[in-house]
Each structure stands twice: as C-alpha cells, then as structure tokens.
C-alpha cells in the first residue's frame, strides 16, 4: 500500500513537472524558416583588382 502511494505520488509529480503544450506559443517550422532568413545575404561590390 505504502509503495503504491509513493509510486502514485512520483507519477503525479512527473505529470505536473512536465511542461504543457501552450497552443498560443507553438512555433511551426514555417515560422522558424521565415524568421531566420531575415539576415541580409546581399554582397558588397568590391573595388577593382586592376
């Protein structure tokens, strides 16, 4: 009985400790790609070698 209570307690701890999925905070792969391709990729124009 004692063992069962400890197990149940541990299990409930595990459930509470696991972060829940926040529906409003979910990043899709699309968002990730969208935000990450923002940095400028354009090249400078170099002066002539001559």
């Amino acid at each position, binding site marked *: 009985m004692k063992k069962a209570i400890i197990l149940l307690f541990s299990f409930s701890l595990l459930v509470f400790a696991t972060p829940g999925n926040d529906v409003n905070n979910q*990043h899709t*792969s*699309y968002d*990730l*790609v*969208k935000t*990450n*391709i*923002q*940095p*400028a*990729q*354009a*090249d*400078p*124009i*170099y*002066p*002539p*070698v*001559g």
Partner: protein
Amino acid sequence: MEFGPLIKYYRTQKGITQKELAAGICSIPHLSKIENNSKDANEETISLLLERLEVSFEEMEEKEELIKSLLKDFGEKINFYLRDEIEIIFNRLKEIEHVIPFSAHMYSYELYKYRYLLFKGLLAEADTQRDILSKQKKNFSQHEMYLFRYYNAVSLILKGNHKKADEIFDELSAENNNETTNGELLYHWALVKSALDQPGHAIHFGRLALQIFMNQHNFYRILHNLMLLGINYTNSKIYEEAQVCFNHLIRNAELLKEEKMLPQIYHNMGYLQDKMNNVKEALHYYEKSLSLQPVKNQHYLVTLYGIGEINYNLNLIENAKECFLQVKSLSKDIGIKKQGLLAEFYLIHMDSPEKAIKYLELKVIPYLEGSKEHKEELIRYYKLLSEHYNQQGKYLEAVNYLSKIT
C-alpha cells in the same frame, strides 16, 4: 643591348649571308662568334656591321634607354590605375617589341606584358604568358622572380582562388621581413583577406596601403582602398568607421563625377545600412545605385538581389518576387550562379518553406561549400537547417549541421 643576336636577327630578316655581311669588315668566323655572343666585338666593328644592315648604332642605344623608361612608366601607371595611359604606353612598347629581346629588359618587358593582360582581365592570354615566363624563370633576377610570383597571386585573385593567393603574399612578405612597402601588393592582400572572411586582417593591410597611396597622392587607389576599408569595417560591425569611409567616398566621387565608381559606392552604403538594420536607407541607396547602372552586369545583379531581399524583409512580396525573377533570369544570362540560386530559394520559399529547405540542402549549400569562400553565409544556413530539424525532432540531422559549424 645584346648586339650580337641583334645583328643576327637583322641579317636573317634581310636574307643576307654571313659572308656577304662580313666582307671587308671582319672574318666570317669572327662574325659567327659575335652573333653567338661568344666574343665581344669592338664598337667600331659593331657599328660597321649595323651600318651595312641599315640599322643605326646610336638609334639602338637610344632604344635601349627608351625601353627602360617606358617600362618604368608602365609600372607607375599600373600602380596609379591610369587605364588610358597604360594603353598608350603598352602600344608604344609594342611598336619596338622586335628589339626588346636584344635589350637588357627582355624579362621585365615580358613580366609587364603578363601584368597588362591581368589588368585587362584577359585571363586565358595571361595564362599563356605565365607559361612562357615559367620556362624562363631560372634566368630571372631576384626582383623579376618577386614580380612573377606577385603577378601569379594577382592572377589567382582574378580566378577566385584567394587561399592560394594568400599563401603567396605570406611568403613574399616573410621574405621581405614583413616590411612590404608596395602599396599595390598590400591593397591586393587586403582584397584577398576580405574575400577569405578575415576583415580584421583586411583592415590592417588596407590601412597600410592607404597610407602609402596617400603619400603618393595615388588618387584612384585611395578611393579603391577606402571602399575596401568601408566594406571590411561593415563586416567587422565597426559601423561608424564604415560610414565615415562611404560618406568620404560619396563626397569625392560626386564632386569629381566619378560615374564608374558612384553606383558601387552607393551600393556599399546600402550594404552598410542593411547590416545596421536601417532598411529604408538601405533600399534608398540600392535603388540609387541601380539607377546609375545602365549595363546589366554582375554588379547590377548584386544590387538587384539586395533590393529583392529588402522588399522581402519589408513584406513587399510582389516587389520582391519581381526582383528575384529578374535576378534568376539575369544570373543565367551572365553565368553568375550564387545570386541565381539564392533568388530561387526565396521564390520557392514564398510558396513552400518546406520545399525551400530541401532546395537549400540540395542546391545552395553544396554550391557554397564548393566555392569555399562563403564561410559566414554557410554558418548562417547551417544554423537555420539545424534549428529546422531540431524543431521537427530530427536530432541526428540537427546535430550534423551543428557539427559543421564547429
């Protein structure tokens, strides 16, 4: 002047035998020895032989001096980047090219010819000239050997092989106890360091070169150097210094109506504003640059791509699409791959980010890895892919891209 071979050259050209030429002046074996340079003849004999060949001894001596002074001028004009004058001097040298092999400046002339071909961007012809010179290099003086190796480095820069060029500059500098006073060489080295994503080194060599060019009042190279420094200050995030360089350049180029350089300067000012996240200013400068570029060449392509990206970032998708479509088609026409691939990446991304990721892996990354000179960009894409796979729970792929960064 090597008169023996010169006499042989004119005698053969005029179709005269040794017997005919030597008659009354010297013996045939003596002439033979003179022609083969195995015997020094006195000035009088040489004069008589040349007179019979209708070539003036004094004129030849003068030509020797002329070759020397033209070569000196030629080196200076290259150093000062005076394109029209380089052409004039090269044509004058061409006119007396037939006597140059008999002068003491034969190798210098051939070396400068190599430099001229590189200056003009005639790479195939420059390679042929390099091969000719390579066969003679054991006869070069120390200075000639230095020039040959330096010009080989310039050739490698023009071919995009910056790593090998860097090695040559390293060797040349070490041989000079790291005290190079050649502004042109320091400028080229700064270009190499910049292409190798080493902006700190590029700034160091660029500043040394700038000082030398300023002492020489070497106007064009001062402008080129300021542009190079501006780019490298931008890449090092020293934005204030970069702004000083570009503002200075804009002022001078506008004042002097430097039409060729102005669009490039505006573009680089746009590049700086872009990096500083001043998106609207960046767009303003890129557009100003594009309006001054009538020829649809590589520079036009780079500027147009920059405009496409800014429009994309400002969420002006239709404008961005129009730019990227133009970039894609132009890159095919002029054979510049990078901007074409990146434009295609954005175009695919507009419809399907998932497909864009695949395209990035299959086309863009292999290209950038192959060119070995886009380290910073590669890292950015590796991070993007790593985060993408991490998000999807594909940890093995994520770790694979992470490990490429380190």
